[in-house]
């Protein structure tokens, strides 16, 4: 994934900083709680939500099961409609392809529709190395780009910024990138939006090349779909002559009809809207005389760890994700830790299961992500395609502590347990030994009870983390089972 995140500390360390930042926590709390409540209302409006969720799950599972077939069908349809399909095995290959395509047009500037896939591969940075400037046109993405920052939310990349911070970024940076911010810009949402609109309009009208992702790709017709709220996407898709779309292979759906389900569940889950303000669809190229839309269209189909993820029978459900970000907005861990702590463009619960699958669990941050959850299950409850995120988290924890079979770059391998878990493993094994022997458990309990006067109020070793912020419960004089035996199940005493 994007080089931006290399060298990130493990999740607990990154979260440590975030938890101590009151502005960040306030911004996140406010934003997630607002959208959380709105989503609940928008979902409650539909009597058939449970059926839609199940339908979405099934369509995605079916597609993933026959992914090879649908991708070939898609390629044929896109080609027939005048587009060109490119296959990219990883981030480097995708970046090379896109840079080559842009260079071939002779342009050095491109406008971009917000896209997770291009962030995942670090496209903007890769293009810059080739002398090509990529301008983000989504408002929040623009804020992140101007602020030389990283996105911290799937849908609202600048969720961690408040209005005052945004005003400051616009005033300082817009000039460097094009049309400067108006004099005396205040921090009212309307003025900020207007400043962005004027700044971006120039870019749209000048650009000859647009780069996008897609929310869906329809195999039967070769149609790509982008849903968005601001209309910037529509401009990028219709104004430039050349359009290059970089899309993860899991975004395909078999038929046009399947969209019906997702065009209901996605907006309600993400922005709590009944419908997306802009739903743009494009199929191949358009004829210059007659219509808007690209005259040259390239589709780059991105794998980058997806086939490997597909090979895992528990973890593959992560590929059902439609990036609605509902799981982020309800996640109590995301709310405190913020998106950056997850060390990837996919933060929150989905990031915690997707990144360690796409990238593997070799790095410290990836090995820590499966533990970045209390397994409270709020994410699973809201997910519109019913991804059982807690199940995958536990599955990945198993991979981290015990190793096991994985597929990496198409090859089967057996992973060794990650380092640094030896003490935990020993403790778990010792506990197992005692817990399969009721007698041993009883002896242990008695020991704990008899020595209770000597128990410290703070714990050594890993237990310190507990007693740093919480008091330990006092140990009772007698475990229940001893009471039960002594009193004959409570019958002998009062």
């Amino acid at each position, binding site marked *: 994934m994007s080089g931006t995140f290399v060298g990130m500390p493990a*999740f*607990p360390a990154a*979260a440590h900083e975030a*938890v*101590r930042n009151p502005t960040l*926590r306030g911004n996140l709390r406010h934003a997630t709680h607002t959208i959380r409540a709105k989503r609940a209302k928008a979902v409650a409006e539909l009597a058939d939500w449970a059926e839609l969720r199940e339908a979405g799950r099934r369509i995605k599972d079916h597609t993933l099961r026959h992914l090879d077939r649908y991708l070939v069908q898609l390629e044929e349809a896109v080609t027939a409609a005048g587009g060109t399909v490119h296959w990219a095995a990883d981030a480097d290959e995708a970046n090379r392809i896109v840079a080559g395509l842009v260079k071939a047009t002779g342009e050095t500037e491109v406008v971009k529709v917000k896209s997770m896939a291009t962030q995942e591969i670090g496209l903007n940075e890769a293009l810059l190395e080739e002398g090509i400037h990529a301008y983000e046109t989504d408002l929040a993405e623009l804020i992140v780009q101007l602020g030389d920052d990283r996105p911290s939310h799937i849908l609202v990349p600048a969720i961690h910024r408040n209005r005052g911070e945004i005003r400051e970024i616009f005033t300082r940076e817009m000039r460097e990138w094009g049309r400067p911010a108006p004099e005396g810009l205040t921090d009212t949402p309307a003025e900020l939006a207007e400043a962005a609109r004027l700044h971006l309009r120039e870019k749209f009208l000048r650009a000859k090349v647009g780069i996008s992702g897609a929310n869906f790709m329809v195999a039967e017709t070769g149609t790509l779909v982008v849903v968005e709220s601001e209309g910037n996407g529509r401009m990028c898709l219709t104004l430039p002559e050349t359009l290059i779309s970089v899309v993860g292979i899991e975004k395909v759906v078999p038929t046009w009809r399947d969209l019906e389900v997702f065009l209901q569940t996605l907006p309600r889950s993400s922005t709590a809207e009944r419908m997306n303000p802009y739903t743009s669809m494009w199929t191949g190229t358009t004829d210059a005389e007659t219509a808007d839309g690209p005259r040259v269209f390239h589709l780059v189909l991105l794998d980058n760890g997806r086939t490997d993820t597909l090979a895992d*029978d528990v973890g593959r459900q992560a590929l059902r994700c439609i990036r609605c970000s509902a799981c982020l907005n309800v996640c*109590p*861990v995301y709310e*405190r*830790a913020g998106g950056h702590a997850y060390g990837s463009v996919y933060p929150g619960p989905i990031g915690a299961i997707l990144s360690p699958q796409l990238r593997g669990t070799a790095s410290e941050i990836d090995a820590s992500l*499966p*533990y970045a*959850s*209390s*397994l*409270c*299950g*709020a994410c*699973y*409850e809201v997910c519109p395609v019913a991804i059982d995120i807690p199940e995958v988290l*536990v599955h*990945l*924890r*198993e991979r*981290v*502590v*015990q190793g096991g079979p994985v597929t990496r770059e198409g090859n089967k391998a057996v992973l060794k347990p990650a380092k640094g878990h030896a003490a*935990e*493993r020993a403790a*778990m094994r010792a*506990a*197992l030994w*005692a*817990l*399969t*022997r*009721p007698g041993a*458990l009883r002896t242990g*309990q008695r020991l704990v009870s008899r020595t209770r006067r000597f128990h410290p109020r703070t714990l050594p070793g*890993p*237990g310190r*983390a*507990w007693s*740093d*912020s*919480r*008091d*330990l*419960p006092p*140990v*009772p004089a*007698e*475990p*229940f*089972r001893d*009471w*039960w035996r002594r009193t004959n*199940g*409570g019958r002998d005493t009062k």
Partner: protein
Amino acid sequence: MRVALFLTCVNDTLYPDTGRAMVKLLTRLGVEVDFPMAQTCCGQAHYNTGYRHEAEPLARHFSDVFGEYEAIVTPSGSCGAMVRELYPRMGERARAEGRGGSLATAVASVVPKTYELTEFLVDVLDVTDVGAYYPHRVTYHPTCHGLRGLGLGDRPRRLLEAVRGLELAELPGAEECCGFGGTFALKNPDVSAAMGTDKVRNAESTGAEVLCAADNSCLMHIGGTMARLRTGMRPVHIAEILASTEEEPAS
């Protein structure tokens, strides 16, 4: 009716009062309670930390110990969810990995008979007024695995509402996780503590003396945070409230 009390290792070792309250309550309601001495632990800590293979012998042991009973009742939403939700999954995984269906068969003898306490009272015994008396202002925290794993719904609240003398205060953000999460509290101490603090501050805002839940593990974390923040509130397991009567009131 003869039921087995599945007390869980945490309750047995650290919260025997909850077990005694269960015995008192169920006996009062005419249920014959047994405590199978061979019981140990459901294996949740192992399973959730990534030690699924280590959890398997514990699931098997649990099934051996409890298989013969008509019903198994536990005062823990999360251990209840472990048995009901995750044991079948463990059985299926073992089968899928070519290790045969014996674990699946073993757990099938306990899965449908395992109930969390409030579920057992409301669904099996069909009571909501258990004749309890508890003259305190109480706020109720629905724990995650009880709420979302078992789908306890409003059962605990209905039981509490029927307790004489009890004043139920609405907990803001009730359905948010308290931040315990087993080993999560150790592996991500900062986030866990931040979540716990918010939970306690919300509880404080209700003016209640007591925060009640149907799981002592969450109560240990919340109670430990309450003590550290010197709130004066205390955590009490719902079994202890429901067992409390005018003659023998719980504190």
